[in-house]
């Protein structure tokens, strides 16, 4: 509590997202960007107005963590904006999705075409085209980055 949220120029974060995930420009249109602390970027409605109220303990939803060498999109950002991503996306089958949501590491066989993602970095995991979270991609393995508090063992997945 108590960290300030500062309205920032969203251009570098928009550019990073579009470069990383190749989403259409309209996906993130009409948003404002807010910085909390040194390394946390939040995304909110374009006309959101915290006014002169203090303290503020949240503006919109968390979008990006910029503290490490590789920037990390948040789970909520991936679910919100990952539907139309066309780069750095890995489609999972039912069994892989269940393990991903349980925060496990998924290994891809050498002959699996999905294992041909070029970069080490964060990718969007999708199931039936629905973004279910982001994971760290490293030499043919996908390390689930679903936060502990949101992970689920034995989700009821019926389709």
């Amino acid at each position: 509590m108590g960290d300030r949220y500062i309205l920032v120029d969203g251009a570098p974060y928009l550019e990073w997202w579009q470069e990383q995930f190749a989403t259409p420009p309209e996906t993130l249109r009409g948003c404002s960007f807010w910085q909390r602390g040194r390394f946390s970027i939040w995304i909110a409605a374009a006309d959101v107005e915290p006014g002169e109220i203090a303290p503020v303990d949240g503006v919109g939803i968390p979008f990006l963590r910029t503290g490490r060498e590789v920037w990390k999109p948040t789970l909520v950002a991936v679910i919100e904006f990952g539907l139309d991503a066309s780069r750095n996306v890995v489609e999972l089958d039912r069994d892989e999705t269940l393990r991903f949501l349980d925060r496990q590491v998924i290994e891809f066989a050498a002959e699996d075409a999905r294992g041909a993602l070029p970069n080490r970095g964060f990718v969007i995991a999708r199931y039936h085209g629905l973004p279910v979270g982001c994971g760290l991609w490293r030499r043919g393995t996908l390390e689930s980055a679903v936060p502990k508090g949101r992970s689920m063992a034995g989700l009821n997945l019926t389709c």
Partner: protein
Amino acid sequence: MEHIAHGLERYRDLIDDWQALVDTSRRPLPLVVWENPLRRQHVERLAVAAGLDRRATVGDLLATRGHEVEPLAWRAGAWRVRGLDKPGRTLEHYLGLMHVQEEISLAPARVLAAEAGEMILDFCAAPGGKTACIAVGMDNRGTVVANDLRPQRLRPLRSNCERLGIRNVVITPINGIRFPLDAGPFDRMLLDVPCSCEGNLRESRPATRRARHSQVEGRGGLQATLLGRAWKLLRPGGVLVYSTCTFAPEENELVLDYALGEDAVIEPFAIAGLRHDPGVTHWAGKELRSDCDNLARYWPHHNDTGGFTIARLRKVVAVG
């Protein structure tokens, strides 16, 4: 052990069918879910994956899995669902396509009728179900300031807003009694005050115990103080919805009678498909404002819900 509904005997004159209330209060609340309109594209994609038409709803998705699904009579995009033991363990919930909420708790947002682009203040917002209901109706435009005194109760509010992808909520952890007056004015406000929770009598751990009835009178002071502060933050012409999950006139009509002045009107309203009883203008030997009869009291046996009381107040625009 005496049944919990007997704590409500002091309202017997207000209740049309006492036995129906007792019987209803013995039954657990139906499970109600609503579809998140901000996630329509996600629902479409899941519907197609499940072999349904792209226009299929979350209700349709649940029905295909054998759950008995009944649309609410008074609100589109919400259903009573039977046979879904752990709604939090579904993909629909994980992805924020739906939210679980007690049916009658959806009513304040309906009465508030917030519009996209407006400035809204939800004064006692935690745990945030009503905030979410208001915010998703605004199409991620404008601002909903969600305030609550207790930071630990703001946690579920925050996680629900994040899961549902709500981008127009600003969270503030401020004691409402000291909420800064220069933060306003707001177009609309929800004041869902802390109360004695008599209406929760159907929940697994109901608040209605005789031991808690001392709270009925004890809460009125705080409720009136919060209403007084909130009123100063409302713009002239603006709407304030005052609600409690309790029946006591001491926490509803008497608070409004005490706190409101001539610049306030308690407006009549009705939700088609959701029955309510009118407010009282006399209670415990006291005569109250005549517009107190415009309050709506929702008894559990009328709609098979929890209990609730709602007043819709408008701030009069000064002439001249």
